[in-house]
């Protein structure tokens, strides 16, 4: 039972344009959401997070939007840069401070120069 779903296994975006990565979840107990970025042969690195009390969190070129009623979140990267090419994982926890991360299956983002 996949509680966190990333339905797009891959996405290609032109450099300079906006990249939008989507994530859906089924467990209504999830209260805190994170995005991780993973380069080949490296471990995932934390990118940005959002609490369920917010609907938007922004950090430089990265913005995460949360639609709690739809159990949907998205990561926007603008403008996209070649260094953004990586696999992006959405993850969720029942509450901030709870350390049991449930990951999605990942979306491979390719930025085309």
């Amino acid at each position: 039972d996949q509680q966190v779903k990333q339905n797009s296994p891959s996405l290609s975006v032109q450099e300079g344009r906006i990249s939008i990565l989507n994530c859906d979840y089924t467990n209504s107990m999830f209260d805190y959401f994170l995005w991780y970025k993973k380069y080949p042969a490296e471990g995932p690195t934390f990118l940005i997070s959002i609490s369920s009390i917010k609907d938007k969190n922004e950090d430089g070129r990265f913005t995460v939007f949360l639609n709690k009623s739809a159990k949907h979140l998205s990561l926007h990267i603008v403008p996209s840069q070649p260094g953004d090419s990586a696999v992006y994982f959405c993850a969720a926890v029942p509450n901030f401070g709870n350390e049991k991360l449930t990951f999605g299956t990942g979306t491979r983002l390719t930025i085309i120069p």
Partner: protein
Amino acid sequence: EAGVVQSPRYKIIEKKQPVAFWCNPISGHNTLYWYRQNLGQGPELLIRYENEEAVDDSQLPKDRFSAERLKGVDSTLKIQPAELGDSAVYLCASSSLAGGGEQFFGPGTRLTVL
């Protein structure tokens, strides 16, 4: 500051052989995690340690997997005997409450069971 260190980076073994992975967390991080990432999937938690105590091992297949974190610092994950389905990347992560609980991952060990 050094990150999470894992060794070996790659391991190829035949089925039924034993294998062990080692992890050294970031200094001062009291929480240590072992994850398994199958091809095309996200990481899945196997076991979580608070210092030397395993506080969540519900996802660890205990018939063949074992882990230890003696002295609450570095940790070893062992599989004995390995099966074909154990081929995956084994990731170690660490975190600290002082750091807000953010998990820092090591580069992983890619295991191939033939």
